[in-house]
């Protein structure tokens, strides 16, 4: 501990360099911690759905193929099935093409049972069941387009050549995705001329143990029909959606690591410079009896303090930015689910320690092992 003074004093040797190094490490670790936090969106959603008793039933040929409306009663009659809800994607836009947000038409009477865990208020669901043109809108979308309850809005179809005029009867809130807009499938069916089709069926089983049996049973019922089904648990269904982002997440992580490596090299260069300037002092301290090991420890400690200060600074800023970003703007959609998990703090500080340790170790060792007489002759 008596050496702490020495380490701290050395940090003040070149204040500008010390603070620039702290800042550059902070910036890179800010980027790093934000990037490696991205995949938490996926993990969060998957964790939420892991214990779900919901099953998604879609056309075996792919998500863009529809299923007949008539399947509904047959699925409902399957053992252990509590509720079935048809869902059709409308893909409407509000004003601009860039306004895209998820808008779905669902069977209103089944929705409360399928989404009981979303904590949508009962009055909202009641209104939804009463009015054929009713819409429930997520708070993010409400805020984004500056909508209010009771307002009439028109969505222009992109999949279907029609427009729907909806009345906002409530917000979804709770755990529902913050940017969804829900309206009634019977209204959509009527508007597009009753083709009797459904994008997917959401099915609730009576227990999570029953889920695999129900999946097998449903797919068996429609085997060899003109529209074979493929059922999967909600976790696996969402997981397959998330797979689209997997490459993106991997890229984010790789980028994060590249950022850390490059700042590591910059830090190594800075450490080498700062050690080089002290070669004579190091020789003088060794002539007093300081061992190379002690001197290396002191120099590495100094570098660790710089790197950890940068790490904490970067991590804290990323945490705050993500927090502000996710709470202030639900319109950010799935991005709003980004949180900085504690493990990222750990990873960032570990990255900082590695930067501090490795950048200083090699130049410090070289300097501390240098021949004392040679180093002293350099100054003379």
């Amino acid at each position, binding site marked *: 501990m008596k*050496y702490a003074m020495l380490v701290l004093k050395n940090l003040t040797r070149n204040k500008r360099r010390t603070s620039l190094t702290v800042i550059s490490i902070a910036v890179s670790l800010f980027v790093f911690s934000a990037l490696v936090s991205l995949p938490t969106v996926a993990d969060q959603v998957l964790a939420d759905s892991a214990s779900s008793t919901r099953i998604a039933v879609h056309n075996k040929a792919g998500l863009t193929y529809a299923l007949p409306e008539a399947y509904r009663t047959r699925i409902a009659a399957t053992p252990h099935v509590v509720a079935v809800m048809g869902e059709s994607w409308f893909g409407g836009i509000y004003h601009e093409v860039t306004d895209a947000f998820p808008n779905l038409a669902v069977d209103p009477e089944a929705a409360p049972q399928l989404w009981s865990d979303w904590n949508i208020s009962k009055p909202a669901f009641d209104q939804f069941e009463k009015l054929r043109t009713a819409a429930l809108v997520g708070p993010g979308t409400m805020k984004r387009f500056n909508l209010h309850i009771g307002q009439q809005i028109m969505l222009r179809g992109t999949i279907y050549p029609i427009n729907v005029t909806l009345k906002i009867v409530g917000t979804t809130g709770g755990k529902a995705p913050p940017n969804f807009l829900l309206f009634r499938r019977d209204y959509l069916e009527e508007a597009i001329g009753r083709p009797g089709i459904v994008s997917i069926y959401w099915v609730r089983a009576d227990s999570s143990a029953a889920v695999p049996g129900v999946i097998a049973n449903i797919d068996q019922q429609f085997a060899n029909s003109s529209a074979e089904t493929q059922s999967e648990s909600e976790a696996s269904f969402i997981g397959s959606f998330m797979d689209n982002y997997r490459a993106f997440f991997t890229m984010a992580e790789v980028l994060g690591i590249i950022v850390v490596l490059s700042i590591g090299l910059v830090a190594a260069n800075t450490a080498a410079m700062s050690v080089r300037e002290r070669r004579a002092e190091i020789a*003088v*301290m*060794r*002539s*007093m009896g300081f061992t190379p090991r002690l001197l290396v420890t002191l120099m590495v400690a100094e570098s660790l303090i710089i790197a950890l200060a940068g790490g904490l600074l970067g991590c804290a800023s990323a945490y705050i930015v993500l927090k502000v970003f996710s709470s202030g703007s639900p319109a950010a959609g799935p991005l709003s689910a980004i949180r900085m998990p504690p493990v990222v703090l750990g990873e960032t500080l570990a990255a900082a320690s590695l930067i501090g340790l490795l950048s200083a170790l090699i130049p410090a060792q070289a300097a501390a092992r240098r021949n004392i*007489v040679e180093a002293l002759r350099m100054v003379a």
Partner: protein
Amino acid sequence: MGESAAIELDNVTRIYKRDRFEIRALDGVTMSVPAGRFVAIMGPSGSGKTTILNLIAGIDRATSGHVSVGGEVVSRMTERELAGWRARHIGLVFQFYNLIPVLTAFENVELPLLLTPLKKSERFEHVEAALAVVGLADRMHHYPRQLSGGQEQRVAIARAIVTDPTIIVADEPTGDLDARSAEEILALLRDLNLQFRKTIVMVTHDQRAERFVESVYRLDKGVLAGVEPARPAAIDAAAAARSRVS
């Protein structure tokens, strides 16, 4: 008093290898310095003065021959042993002071004490005493850049004596100072020698040094050319001071 040798060099040769050239910095030097002496090593540039000093201080190794200091054979110690030995027995003073710029005078002097088991309060007392000896007790919180060259060299001397080493080794301590400061430093070293019976070996070009030291060892081209007594008047004073102490 018995003239036991503080420093003995026995047929010491130091050869530096540079590319394909060999430089014989020291060529079979045999000499001894009695304990409690203040001696100067003088000679032309490149004659091997610094090389001798480095061997005595245990920061360089002889190519052949033996160096013993205070009865211990320095030339046989391992690097680790040498580091510990230097911490206990050697106080080094350099031409360019070599103080750590980010440390105050106090902290610079405290530096070698960090390697000892002394407690903070004890270290404080030692540092204060050492700074008082060199007459800079009132400057302990100044940084090197706030001090004159002579004052910096005093701090460096305080740093060299604070551990109470067996020997003080100084390489051209006045080489970078004006005439007045140089005389002050020489006088300070002489006083340390007289009052504390420190063995001091000083390399110098400075002719004034002859008035302060007891003997001059003359080096020429890596060979010891002779040892001459110096400071005729001062030797008496030294003897008087010694009898007063004992």
